[in-house]
């Protein structure tokens, strides 16, 4: 994920690692985010996903989750300056985020949300 964003965000140079991105870099980052959003929407409408099951469904959802995470990391890293700020802030925020994901994935797994046999909670 880091490689992709490093290639896409050409405006972010080594010098910026010390001073933060320039205004032009911020605009480039916003354009990248808009493009990813457009790809995300187009991806969800691809006809190949019609009635998708099994590996196809995993590919559809996996692609969307990947693009979502990419946008998340770009906004947190560049717009929220986590990439340039003291590491303690990135550790704090990502630790809380990972904790939330782990806790709620465990909860959802307990309710068998990921099972295709019994989707959702049945009271």
């Amino acid at each position, binding site marked *: 994920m880091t490689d992709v964003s490093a290639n896409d965000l050409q405006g972010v140079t080594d010098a910026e690692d010390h001073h933060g991105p*320039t205004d032009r870099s*911020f605009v480039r980052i916003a354009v990248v985010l808009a493009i990813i959003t457009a790809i995300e929407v187009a991806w969800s*409408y691809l006809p190949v996903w019609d009635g998708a099951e099994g590996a196809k469904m995993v590919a559809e959802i996996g692609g*969307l989750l990947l693009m979502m995470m990419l946008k*998340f990391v770009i906004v947190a890293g560049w717009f929220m300056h986590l990439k340039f700020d003291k590491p303690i802030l990135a550790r704090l*925020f990502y630790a*809380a985020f990972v904790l*939330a994901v782990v806790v709620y994935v465990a909860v959802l797994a307990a309710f068998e949300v990921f099972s295709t046999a019994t989707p*959702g909670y049945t009271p």
Partner: protein
Amino acid sequence: MSDAAVAGVTHADHADHPPTSTGLSNEKLGMWVFLGSECLLFGGLISTFLLYRSKVLPDIPGGTAKPLHETFNIAFTSASSFVLLMSSLTMVLAVSALAQRNIRGTRIWLAVTALLGMMFISGQVYEFYEFVNVNGYGLTHSPAWSAFYALTGFHGAHVTIGIVMLVTCLALTFSGRVNGDNPETVEIVGLYWHFVDVVWIVVFTLVYLIK
């Protein structure tokens, strides 16, 4: 918006706060801790939605239940998402302008950010109106719709609070209490605003795009 200008707005060694053991101001660290706790709040709301999303009821007794995504207007919500995404850009430009002591630029970008936030909220109000009054899916229609309104409503409330914070910052630039000497005030408001955007990135994918 100078190309060569360097934002440098989040340098850890700001001199506009008393010394601390972390080198960060307590206000900024406090905001990050708060945002970390918000991850758990929205995680709970998103999980609840995922748990109940299939629990829809038929419009008429004995009829077939219509899945949520068949009611969503993805084109409209995509436009709303784009608006919120661009508000993050204008927010970061406001922070950058203040770090360069460009008060006029700061005011313009803060105002544009608040306006984009209002556009997003207007879109959400319109979306809710359509769901409730045109389609007949109110808060208590079914567990799926209750979870949907709880999640998107909480997010909308956060955006509204963000708009109030932005307008307050804008007013404080006129009274001189927010200026180039203390750019961290706007930076902290910016962190909150970007977080609201980040949450919407997750909500947009999990709620609207994944069927």
